[in-house]
């Protein structure tokens, strides 16, 4: 019973990572968007077959089964969610439509905002009021809720969101409405804004509660169906789902908060980065997971994943703390084109998995970055996945010639190299901004490259950013599926606590937190024996008077005399670290207390392999290919990943082809296979960074 299975449904492929006594196995099957469970079963079937087992045998012996899902995101992006009704305080039902006037692309003023998830006639006001001090000034009149429920029932509402003005100060009226709704609308999902997010800001709470209500019914049906099918296939372990914060929840809990599943898969990138970082002793990591349509970036700093308080998905604002997943529209399918004034552009359109790059020969005729790599001789024409996806070089040449080279008056190879340089410039920009935003310097970081295309770009990106070390997991193509096996079980709780910090009652705060802690412990005690003992992290969100945002500062329990003063000092210090300044004279205000209960996953027993008998490299086949740091074609050694094992060292220029990913090694780089069978790339030190712009010499 020691097997662990991670499953990640991506836009192109469904990945499965299996870790058991037979070692680590990575399996992929094409995703099946119409019914994602089919693709998942296919990938699991491959995994079982590879171990000579039936699917039921594979699952019966599984102690931890983790799933990263795109269901909530797809429901939202495709507009296929529930018919939602919204209850607000009377007089305040339009914050959802006004959206604080936010526009992601101000200059593009013709682009409409995304469709409203609740029409105005289903946004109903209730005459109630919580005042600015949190006192319930006017309680809820049950008759009004009953009347609203009638309207909802007649309109066919399937899911109701509730967000009352000032409810973050006192959720009493929201809870009362929730109780009444559940009584009069049995079977209808109810989302209270303060259950999801008890923080200041009526717009963000409303938007988040509405997104949650919108995706809830389909998400829970999906998770139920998946759970049933897995149970029928003899899975005994609970189905765990990765949440936006990177932690795991059992499926039925996660189904109640589906807004926290909107970056379910990519958030596992943080755990993956931490896992592989641990193998090489790195605490500061930029993780780059580049697939067919996009590239997900996550940042680990001093061992902690960078997080954000809000996500924007398809223009909808979801204010749930999440792993900061920076998504760049740069993938293997990103399309190159020449704009009307003769500038080469990459994206934002992508050929995705269907029709895919021109070289897939599935009807795509526009040139993609995968076509560029192929033209530059960096991909094995026999294709990916051991020939499952053959590549047609002639089709790639035609596409680039016609859409890029000819319009620009460049030869084919320079056009292809140009496509990659532009894509690299975009990714490098995104990485720089992510680090600089937090006051970091990318040169302090190690780059972990994953996904089918990540390691093709990693050397060039590292050179551009001044990063010296790149790590490529051998299972790079199922990075998140592997990472989620290291993620902890988590439960988060937040309670509003608004007012001047020094005016608070330490004993009352301690009581609140102890209550939250009891809840957290009870929730995690449950049914997953594989996980470690429960630990609890407590923090208080503080800010300077007048600030909009807040900063969490760790709290040690119990609070006693002097504790609040100590918290204030920690806040000043933390503020200086994060924002570069502090204001010791200013009043510090409390906003909320947060508690995270967590049970760590048992560490993965990845054991170092004995080094191979020879430290000299095997010889690769020599072919001509484009080399980034030479900015020209050169003789390049080609290896199949299977040829290389621990201890092998290769000097660039070289290309290593794994079944579902490829590593490009620059002329001045060195590649080493470490004791875990992963690739450690040292970027050419001392060599001047290539001329950024100049035509290749």
């Amino acid at each position, binding site marked *: 019973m020691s097997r662990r299975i991670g499953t990640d449904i991506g836009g192109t492929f469904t990945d499965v990572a299996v870790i058991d006594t037979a070692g680590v196995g990575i399996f992929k099957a094409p995703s099946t968007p119409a019914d994602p469970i089919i693709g998942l079963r296919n990938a699991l079937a491959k995994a079982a077959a590879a171990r000579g087992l039936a699917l039921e045998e594979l699952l019966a012996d599984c102690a931890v089964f983790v799933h990263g899902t795109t269901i909530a995101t797809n429901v939202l992006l495709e507009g296929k969610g529930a018919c939602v009704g919204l209850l607000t305080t009377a007089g305040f039902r*339009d914050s959802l439509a006004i959206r604080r006037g936010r526009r992601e692309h101000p*200059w593009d003023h013709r682009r409409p905002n995304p469709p409203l998830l609740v029409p105005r006639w289903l946004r109903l006001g209730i005459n109630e009021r919580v005042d600015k001090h949190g006192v319930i000034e006017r309680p809820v009149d049950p008759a009004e809720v009953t009347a609203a429920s009638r309207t909802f029932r007649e309109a066919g509402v399937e899911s109701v969101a509730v967000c009352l*003005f*000032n409810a973050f100060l006192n959720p009493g009226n929201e809870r009362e409405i929730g109780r009444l709704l559940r009584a009069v609308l049995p079977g209808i999902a109810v989302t209270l804004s303060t259950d999801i997010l008890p923080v200041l800001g009526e717009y963000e709470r409303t938007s988040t509660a509405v997104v949650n209500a919108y995706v809830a019914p389909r998400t829970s049906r999906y998770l139920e169906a998946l759970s049933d099918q897995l149970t029928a296939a003899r899975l005994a372990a609970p189905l765990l789902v990765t949440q936006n914060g990177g932690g795991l929840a059992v499926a039925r809990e996660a189904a109640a908060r589906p807004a926290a599943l909107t970056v379910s898969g990519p958030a596992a990138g943080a755990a993956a980065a931490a896992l592989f970082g641990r193998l090489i002793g790195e605490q500061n990591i930029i993780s780059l997971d580049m697939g067919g349509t996009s590239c997900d970036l996550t940042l680990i700093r001093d061992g902690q994943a960078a997080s954000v308080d809000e996500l924007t998905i398809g223009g909808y604002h979801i204010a749930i703390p999440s792993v900061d997943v920076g998504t760049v529209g740069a993938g293997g399918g990103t399309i190159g084109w020449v704009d009307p*004034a003769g500038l080469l552009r990459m994206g934002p359109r992508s050929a995705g998995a269907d029709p895919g790059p021109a070289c897939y020969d599935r009807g795509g005729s526009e040139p993609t970055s995968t076509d560029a790599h192929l033209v530059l001789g960096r991909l094995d024409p026999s294709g990916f996945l051991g020939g499952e996806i053959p590549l047609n070089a002639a089709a790639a040449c035609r596409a680039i010639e016609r859409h890029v080279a000819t319009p620009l008056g460049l030869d084919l190879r320079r056009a292809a190299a140009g496509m990659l340089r532009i894509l690299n*410039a975009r990714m490098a920009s995104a990485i720089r*901004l992510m680090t600089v935003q937090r*006051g970091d310097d990318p040169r302090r970081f190690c780059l972990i490259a994953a996904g089918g295309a990540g390691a093709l770009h990693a050397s060039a990106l590292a050179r551009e950013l001044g990063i010296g070390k790149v790590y490529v997991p051998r299972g790079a193509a199922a990075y998140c599926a592997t990472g989620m096996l290291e993620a902890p079980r988590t439960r988060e709780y937040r309670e509003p606590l608004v007012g001047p910090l020094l005016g608070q009652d330490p004993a009352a705060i301690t009581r609140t937190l102890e209550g939250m802690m009891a809840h957290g412990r009870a929730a995690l005690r449950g049914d997953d024996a594989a996980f470690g003992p429960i630990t609890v992290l407590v923090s208080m969100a503080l800010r300077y008077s007048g600030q909009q945002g807040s900063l969490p500062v760790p709290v040690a329990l119990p609070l006693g005399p002097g504790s609040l003063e100590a918290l204030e000092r920690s806040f000043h210090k933390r503020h200086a670290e994060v924002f570069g300044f502090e204001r010791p004279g200013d009043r510090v205000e409390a906003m909320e207390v947060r508690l995270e209960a967590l049970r760590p996953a048992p560490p993965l027993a990845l054991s170092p392999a004995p080094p191979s008998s020879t430290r000299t490299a095997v010889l690769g086949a020599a072919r001509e290919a484009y080399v980034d740091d030479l900015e020209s074609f050169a003789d390049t050694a080609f290896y199949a990943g299977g040829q290389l094992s621990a201890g092998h060292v290769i000097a660039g220029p070289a290309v290593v082809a794994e079944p579902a990913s490829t590593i490009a090694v620059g002329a001045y780089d060195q590649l080493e296979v470490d004791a875990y069978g992963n690739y450690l790339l040292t970027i050419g030190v001392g060599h001047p960074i290539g001329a950024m712009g100049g035509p290749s010499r």
Partner: protein
Amino acid sequence: MTVDPITVAVLQHRLDQLTREMGLVMVRAARSPIFSQAHDFSCFICDARGQMVSQADGIPIHTGSGGFAARAVIRRWEPEIHPDDVFLVNDPYVAGGNHLPDWVVMTPVWLDGELLAFTCIRAHQADIGGGVAGTYNSQATEIFHEGIRIPPVKLYERGRLRRDLLELITLNTRCPDIVTSDVSAMVGAVRVGAQRLAEIGRRLGVAEATRYFAALLDYAEARMRQELAAIPDGTYEAEEVMNNDCFSDRPVRIRMAITVAGSDVTVDFTGTDPQIRAFKNSALANTHSAVYIGLATMVDPDIPHNEGTYRMVTIVAPEGSLVNPRPPAPVTYDTVFPAHDIIHCCWKALAQAVPARAAAGWGKAAFPTSTGKDRNGEEYVMYHWGGASAGGAVKGRDGFEQMGQLISLGGLILPNLEAQEQLYPVRFLHCELRTDSAGAGEYRGGAGVDYALRLEEPAEFSLRGEGLRTPSGFGVLGGRDGAPARITVDPGTPSERQLSQYDIITLPPCVFRLESAGGGGWGDPRRRPREAVLADVRDGILSHEAAQREYGVRVP
């Protein structure tokens, strides 16, 4: 000599990213919330001649003015521009400023003994002295009432701070400490930018870098010319009338004639009213910015915004007129009004040329600021953003419901009312879309809001009710105007009253209600699908009577 198209594209990415990086430094280091929350600043790069080559990070109304300030510095200081100098300017009359609150800090980037470029930041200060706190003095009649004027000065001479100069300047503000830290944040941002730009320059070499800067400008010009060439040749005239001059209800006119000849454009303000006594005159740099927004919003939004983009645009702004005043006319409100009016003029003129791209007018703002003391006796300044107006329609979409100012195109985020209740002695009564305020059309304008609060303590209101009395979100191509804004104190009581458009008054505890202006509609309302009209009726955006009157739809 040819340029490599790939290098042009890569350089564009790098410079855009560099200006964003400068912006991040600013947000992290600045003290005033106006930077971290409202993002009222812009970072940009100018070449050695002061041509703005990149401004990816910034608000639209700053787009055209950056080069003016850089060129003013070059004119004043060449040949004494040294490595590690840092310049500071704000004056609209002698230093290419747009209005006094926006200070520009810039530093030269030297490489191999040659001047390569300048990295620059323009940022709205918390206070600059003048007649009222918070930089907007609606009662000013001279620029001297608006705050301290700064010609191009060297704040740092070869890396050495001229502390006495900084002290002189900041002593002329109400909050020297805050302004000093914000200026040092600005200096930090341009220095970081300069280091990074030097790295880029070093890789290319000064000569190549200069050549490629020129290529970026040429590229933007080529894109813009392609767009303009598609607009039929001709002269298109338009007029926008402000219904007041801040002191009386006298109409103030902006006249514009846009002549398109091939891919060249002339924007001629001849016939525009003379400058006025109050602070709604537009400094020349601001007039350029507003025209650029007016043009850029009529073409492909993907075109980069640098000084090449507008090379083919000639602006004729008669001296002494509202759009190019002589000193000492006050100008502080220019980045909002008349910038909004100038953009409207461009839209009205070009609607005749390219009806498919016509944009209806956005409701003008009418919301005040109020100041007073909160319960703790602390001074506050509250912007009543909750009463902001709505956007106009274009073909293909209805107008945005309540939005920030047109000049930010929605780049500015409105605060949550819950946050404002916590900060200020007010209690909100309601803030909902306003029935029948949206201009009718095949695509309707955005609806304004009905915003009301109870004032818990007396407060001094700085009234800036530009959008009151007459419609401001104009309709196009048969679309109707949005409703004008209306302000009422103590509605429905014996003491119910209206307020003047521009004034500074003290209000006792009372109910303050602002119904904000609606956006204009696009196209004939009779062409709006019946279901869409009925949906607006069901949603309470449209009354039964208005559905019948404006759209000819009888509601069953």
